[in-house]
């Protein structure tokens, strides 16, 4: 009898234990469900692509000490070389495109970091070409005070006749018509026949820039400042040494610098 009771008690205990374990399990499941954060959106994996603008004079790296010679035979030194790169679009081999949002970059030869532009959140895949503007589009010239690289405090903005300086080159030349022998070339103007922006579109040729999770390819572009002074118009510093407002004289430079940038190659490593 005693034995039977003990057995029943044992069964009950076991049952209670099981019940407790089950209920705990059940409760904890429930609790888990309650505190579970919503399933995150399936993340679109993206990568990045880098652009390296290499500033040159002819084939030499651009620096602030070398005496260069322009196509007209004038000797010159550079003390400042700034320009805007904007509206960057890259195109995949399947012709889909990635447009960099808020795409405005000030490249300054005095600041090596500024020559390296990283496009982020780029969809993975193989890219075959790139396009961008040298300068700032007319919309941003007309939309009031901007921030970042377009801030007026970057000293690439005309205060008295609104507009961005698209390309700024300063330096000196013994042939300069200025009494100080200075070269002061502030080239801008955002509308009309003399507008100073120029568009570039480069195919990567037989290569592609392969953006993956692990590799951010780098596109190398050469910017040859000497080409500002030759091409459609051979520039003589005796007469073209000072430019600070839009107009036909700026167009002469702009038609030259339309050929200033060249695609070099892509690194996929």
């Amino acid at each position, binding site marked *: 009898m005693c034995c039977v009771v003990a057995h029943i008690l044992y069964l009950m205990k076991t049952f209670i234990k099981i019940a407790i374990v089950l209920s705990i399990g059940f409760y904890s499941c429930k609790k888990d469900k309650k505190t579970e954060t919503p399933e995150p959106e399936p993340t679109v994996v993206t990568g990045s692509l880098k652009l390296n603008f290499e500033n040159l004079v002819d084939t030499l790296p651009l620096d602030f000490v070398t005496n260069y010679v322009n196509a007209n035979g004038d000797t010159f030194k550079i003390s400042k070389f700034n320009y805007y790169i904007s509206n960057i679009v890259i195109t995949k081999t399947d012709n889909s495109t990635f447009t960099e949002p808020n795409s405005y970059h000030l490249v300054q030869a005095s600041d090596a970091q500024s020559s390296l532009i990283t496009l982020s959140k780029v969809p993975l895949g193989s890219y075959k070409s790139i396009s961008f503007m040298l300068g700032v589009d007319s919309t941003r*010239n*007309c*939309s*009031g*005070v*901007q*921030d970042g690289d377009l*801030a*007026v*405090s970057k*000293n690439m*903005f005309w*205060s*008295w*006749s*609104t*507009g961005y300086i698209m390309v700024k080159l300063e330096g000196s030349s013994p042939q300069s018509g200025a009494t100080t022998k200075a070269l002061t070339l502030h080239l801008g103007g955002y509308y009309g026949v003399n507008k100073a922006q120029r568009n570039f579109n480069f195919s990567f040729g037989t290569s592609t820039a392969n953006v993956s999770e692990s590799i951010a390819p780098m596109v190398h572009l050469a910017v040859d400042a000497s080409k500002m002074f030759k091409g459609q118009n051979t520039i003589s510093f005796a007469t073209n040494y000072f430019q600070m*407002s*839009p*107009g*036909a004289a700026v167009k002469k430079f702009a038609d030259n610098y339309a050929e200033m940038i060249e695609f070099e190659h892509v690194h996929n490593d």
Partner: protein
Amino acid sequence: MNNKRILTVSVLVFGLAACKVDPKINQPLPVDDLVITVPNGWPEPVYTFSNNPISKETFALGRALFYETMLSKDNTISCGSCHQNFAAFANDDHQFSHGVNDQLGIRNSPGLFNLAWHPYFMHDGGINHIEVQPLGPISNPIEMAEDINTVMAKLSASGKYKSLFKEAYGTEEVTSQRMFRAMAQFMGLLYSNNSKYDYYKRQENNVTLNEQELRGYSLFIAKCNTCHKEPLFTDFQFRNNGLKVNPLLKDSGRAHITGEPGDVYKYKTPSLRNVALTYPYMHDGRLTTLEECLDHYTNGIQNTINLDPKLKDGIPMSAEEKKDIIAFLRTLTDYKFINDQRFADPNFPR
């Protein structure tokens, strides 16, 4: 809705600015002083503050900056130095205004009001947006002659501006964008639409024009309104109004901006609102009285290049008609505007 918000802002701004100064001006102002809704019959403004949400803190920052002498190289000149509240923000009795080191410019300081309607700024229209306008006088070597980065450094070092920027934007950081957007709030809200003429047109407060003013109004419509077009009293066009060229000033007007020979000696038509307060007159401040201005149009027109075709024979007006027109022009003075405490220098409360 917008209106309501601004009305609240206006009262708050007043309270904020007034609290630490003169208790006698710490009175709520009539709530319709800062108008954000477009006055009846006016065109839509060009500047709508769409990227620059109005707040009492940002307005207060803009007001402080407008009256801030640190904007100039030697810390002596503010915007308010040459744009005086009591002169409808023109420079009273100054043909040319003084820049740093008492340098004189070549153009007369215009009145500032209803700027949100201006498609471009300066007599030559060289500046295309209200937010970048102050950079012109700040960096002009004969005006405030200061580098914007130096201005920002001075403001960043100032305890007063640390708190004003923080109140306006959440952090103390001084950026050129923050600075100029705040100034655009102050400048853009300088609405002037409460002259006797406005009350008459709106049939408010039983205001009527007297017989002479009414005669002047009819004459004005017939002879002046083509260019000084109601309700803003300007058409914002560039015109050569036949002033004798002053060779000493070497000023080509609009052509200075466009480089176009067809723009030589053209200047933006000024608004005639508050015109009785904004003397001297013309882009170079050469005329002192309204009588002289009307005399210019009857018998002073010079046939210089690009003379506006409408002016080639002058505008015939008899002596009596001129008196009537001037009586009408005086109804365009907005006393409420020039006495608005929120537009006054916060450093020198009246």
